[in-house]
């Protein structure tokens, strides 16, 4: 997704920088970031001071699962090293577009309701008239339920009167589809703010770990075993 669409591409792209506490060369910095790209489906290449990466369908717990493509460039500003990132996310774009899908479902429901009223409403009305002719018996609770105080079921005759007053119920209620469209818009907004912040935090944490510390940590983990649960058998 390297389309040059200024402003619009902010929907799925994140740009920013991470200031480093200690001066690092590009090689040193990318060495520290290396574990982030040693995951299934990851590919990356370093060219001078820039690292380009892409991740194909990363695992759920991959730290860079949301931003699956981008570049990281190390430069110096005011005597301090900084990592400048420019990354993009298919997930953010799809989440931004998801409300359109659910609005589409809502409109389909509205159209089906209209079609139902126009085409089959008369048949339904005849069937309902037939049903209405059948005498409905008031259902009784079991004596045990009466003893325990459960409310008696409604009298079907009284209920019928109430229903007549109500507007004819439509086949599909599009409210859920509208709510889901709104929900996806909220999820998008949360993701657009949260995910770049988490991305920066991940980079900062990775850059703070010296390679020798990372190796010691790895050894300790290997010593502790691969899984926190006892293995069967």
């Amino acid at each position: 997704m390297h389309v040059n669409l200024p402003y619009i591409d902010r929907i799925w792209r994140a740009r920013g920088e991470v200031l480093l506490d200690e001066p690092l060369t590009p090689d040193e910095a990318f060495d520290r970031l290396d574990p982030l790209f040693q995951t299934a489906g990851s590919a990356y290449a370093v060219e001078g001071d820039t690292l380009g990466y892409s991740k194909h369908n990363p695992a759920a717990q991959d730290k860079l699962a949301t931003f699956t493509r981008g570049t990281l460039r190390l430069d110096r500003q005011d005597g301090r090293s900084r990592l400048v990132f420019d990354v993009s996310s298919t997930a953010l774009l799809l989440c931004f577009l998801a409300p359109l899908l659910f609005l589409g479902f809502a409109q389909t429901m509205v159209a089906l309701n209209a079609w139902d009223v126009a085409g089959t409403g008369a048949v339904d009305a005849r069937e309902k008239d037939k049903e209405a002719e059948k005498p409905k018996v008031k259902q009784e609770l079991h004596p045990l339920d009466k003893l325990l105080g459960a409310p008696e079921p409604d009298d079907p005759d009284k209920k019928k009167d109430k229903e007549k007053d109500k507007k004819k119920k439509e086949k599909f209620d599009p409210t859920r589809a509208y709510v889901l469209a709104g929900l996806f818009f909220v999820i998008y907004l949360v993701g657009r703010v949260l995910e770049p912040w988490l991305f920066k935090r991940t980079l900062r944490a990775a850059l703070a770990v010296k390679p020798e510390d990372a190796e010691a940590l790895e050894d300790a983990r290997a010593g502790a075993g691969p899984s926190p649960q006892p293995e069967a058998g």
Partner: protein
Amino acid sequence: MAGVQVGNRIIGADAPVTVGWENIGRVEGGPIKQFVFTHFQPAVLFGLIAFWYYAPNEWALASIGIIIGLCFKVLLLGLEWVNPRYRSWQLTWKEFATDVFYVGLGYTLLRMVDTYIGDGVMIEAVQGAFAWEKFSWFTSLPLLVQALMISMIFDFGQYWMHRGMHNWYPLWLTHAPHHYITQLNINKGAVGNPIELFLIGLGIGGFFDFLPRAFLIAGALGMAVGTYQHINVRFNTPRWWRFIFNTTEHHSVHHSQDYEATRSNYSGTWIIWDRIFGTCVDGEAELLGMEGGRRMDIRETMLFPFTEAYKDFRAWLNKPADAPEPAAAQATVAHQPEPAE
């Protein structure tokens, strides 16, 4: 990996599975946390049953049930945050957004499809063809008995549909995408190919007439038990609960990367069906999924049954009529995702 013998099967030979209640983890923390996460599940279940049993008629509506269900899911999302079963299953923004997409499909697209070809329509057609009335004598039974019958009849159907999906290749093609989930969270039950979600939702309950209030109590049973199948919360589940009800522990075994373990714990709410039919394995697993935990994206999930069926059809067409089955290939099939029974 040696695995553990359960009945005449070896569980955990391909991937780690913890077998036996005595080996699974417990809630860690102070007495209040222990108390909450020990009694939460029964308290919610009995509270909901009492609510629906005594709620006035104007409250006893399906719409109120849906609102309670949504609030309950939000509460459970909070519990996943406070007391996760495994850190490796922690919900991320991307996983949450993906899960909500599948939940959304269930509430919109599948509802539309169900209205035209769902179990209600099929049952009505059968009743019309044979001039059957509904079996209505159940309405005179006590409400809780009716609710238990609704829940157990539906779950019995779901058990056999699910077991069928693991044993008949065409059905397996629809169910396989659900087994590519690599962690359990409360909305993961909705993740899968829509055809599978349509099939698993079919029930025979429509043949019987029950009081509406009994349906609401049965719904509460499904909500306050079935929801825990896919949840990342560590509970000290009571012994009686895990004997009769399905739990996240049971369902994690079903989703584990161990092939034999996936062929167990098929029920949705009542694990008692698995105990009766000999497919129950008590235990839990952390490493879930297929193909070593490869995540399946939405596009592949939607297309999987068709692309796989097409590939198999092509392979069948291109296979020479007299070609013998290579022994090595047969051995591999035993560990492939498709059911090999």
